[in-house]
């Protein structure tokens, strides 16, 4: 494993170990304390990232909310930041975001649950050991590539039997995103199901339950909070996913939930604004941060609920 390194070396040139024993011990204690401080600083730096995010989002959008009332922001159903008579109804972007994420979940929940049940209750350990790395590979595909796939392959394929589907639509990115978050949701819910104690399953078998009934009526209910956590965290990913929707769902802010039409999600709007050269300090520039806050809060809510459910589930067993 590890090579045994000498703790005290006898070279006078060594900055740490040279000198008398007393000097060496003093220097060593100093290094020890210093190392502790430096490592602690690094850990605190990660807190600074969160502080930075919250600070930037709040300070930049404060100026925005001085010009647009929070009431209009939440109730207006038009999003036209570049027009003369600008409207800032964030629900326009939220509706598209939720539509795409909803389609993604409609794919990922049944498929993810089915795959998790299969892996945890049916598959042998050999299959599991092969499938899990494969799922990780699937998770590693860059999201721009999925966007390309949704726009240039899935949309034309769907159009061949759904002629009324527009070139930019929410259906294709939603479906692709569903498969994109599938590895994550499947592996988190499989972990939850596998940590259900064997005794519960054996109790089921002792009552004469079939394997299917044990899976559905014993394991799934017992792991329910873990499985719910998997899908809530998956939802959070779908809401925050950017490139697939920016490429394949179009950039037209439409209020509505029709998956056949294209519409700009929160993330797609941010990308669209960033692509154009936004003058620093303009209302359009500030609106990017205002929708950023909405996105941050939605994903934060999902993440907190997901982490809470997952932790509670872990405590149970």
């Amino acid at each position, binding site marked *: *494993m*590890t090579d045994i*390194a000498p*703790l*005290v070396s006898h070279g006078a040139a060594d900055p740490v170990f040279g000198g008398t024993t007393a000097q060496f011990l003093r220097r*060593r204690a100093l290094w*020890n304390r210093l*190392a502790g401080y430096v*490592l*602690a600083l*690094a*850990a*605190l730096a*990660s*807190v600074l*990232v*969160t502080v930075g*995010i919250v*600070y*930037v989002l709040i300070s*930049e959008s404060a100026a925005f909310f001085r010009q647009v009332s929070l009431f209009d922001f939440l109730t207006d159903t038009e999003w036209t930041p570049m027009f003369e008579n600008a409207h800032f109804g964030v629900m326009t972007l939220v509706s598209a975001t939720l539509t795409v994420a909803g389609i993604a979940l409609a794919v990922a929940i049944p*498929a993810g649950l*089915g*795959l998790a049940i*299969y892996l945890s209750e049916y*598959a042998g350990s050999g299959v599991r050991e092969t*499938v899990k790395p494969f799922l990780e*590979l*699937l998770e*590693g595909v*860059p*999201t*721009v*590539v999925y*966007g*390309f796939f949704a726009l*240039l*392959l899935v949309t034309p394929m769907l159009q061949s039997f759904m002629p009324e589907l527009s070139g930019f639509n929410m259906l294709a990115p939603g479906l692709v995103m569903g498969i994109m978050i599938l590895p994550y949701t499947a592996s988190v819910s499989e972990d939850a199901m596998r940590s259900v104690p064997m005794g519960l399953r054996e109790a089921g078998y002792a009552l004469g339950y*079939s*394997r*299917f*009934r044990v899976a559905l009526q014993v394991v799934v209910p017992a792991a329910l909070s873990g499985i719910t956590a998997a899908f809530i965290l998956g939802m*959070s*990913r779908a*809401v*925050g996913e*950017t*490139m697939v929707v920016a*490429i394949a769902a179009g950039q037209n802010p439409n209020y509505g939930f029709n998956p056949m039409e294209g519409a700009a999600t929160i*993330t797609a709007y*941010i*990308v669209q604004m*960033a692509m154009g050269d936004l003058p620093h300090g303009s209302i359009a520039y500030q609106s990017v*941060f205002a929708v*950023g806050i909405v*996105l941050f809060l939605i994903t*934060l809510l*999902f993440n*907190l609920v997901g*982490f809470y459910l997952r932790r509670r589930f872990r405590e149970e067993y």
Partner: protein
Amino acid sequence: MNAANNCKTLEQIVSANKRIDVVMASLGILVLMVASAMLIGVFVDLLTSGWPRLISSEFYTNFPSRHPEKAGILSAMTGTSLVMLVTAVVAIPLGVAAGLYLEEYAPRNWLTDIIEINVSNLAGVPSIIYGLLALGLFVHTFALGETILTAGLVLALLILPVIIVSTREAVRGIPRDLREAAYGLGADKWQAVRMYVLPAARPGILTGVIVGLARAIGEAAPVITIGALTFIAFLPPSPIQAEAPFINFEWLSSPFTVMPIQLFNWVSRPQAEFHINAAATGVVLMAMTLAMNALAIYIRLRLRRHDR
């Protein structure tokens, strides 16, 4: 048992249950096949549509261009390499140090709780929010501009949680005996950590670093948000030069483009000829990230075999 089951013989019940088992197993395999078909489908589709560009050497040595058949990914590949250099230099020491602190040094108090909750929450923040952080803070407040340095920093922050978590897991997996042996030899805490724990945890940390960098290579959203230009027909100044001091840091403040942005730029154009370039870029990008992820999985599997 309900009345209908009572009428059946035991054998019928058992065989009916077995049938359900077969159906369930095939459903699971079906989902797996759809997922694999997707992965293979994406790759094959990119490969076949990007093939004419992939086999042309000009694609790798040319700059982007208005003429799709002359456009190449030279500036994107250079940009990606330089941005990854910054990301690795920033994220690896910071992430490993933070992970070591949380696992080895942190006292159990409210501050540690805050850091831990913070790290797990950061892992769930959408990447585009990091882009907004960089746009507001790095580009405007710190006036770093839309440069390689800004992009490298934002991607480093993005993958920081990945590296912290994998460092913690790797360090947690080191048996207590090793630390106690080190203490028994007279090591103090820092010596035990630096000379024994860290080297033993190196493969586990490496896995996290590779997965994190693979993610950073494929990320487009935060880099687009800082307003990175998409048409870059020049290379940043070289980091290495012929005269002393042989390295310079001018490249850090140079504008740039990276592979995912180049892909996004080409796929967003209406002309189908540019989509061929996008597909070819996708192949290169996917090959890079898949190879890195496969390497990480391989290291982990070998590590696990080693432990047994």
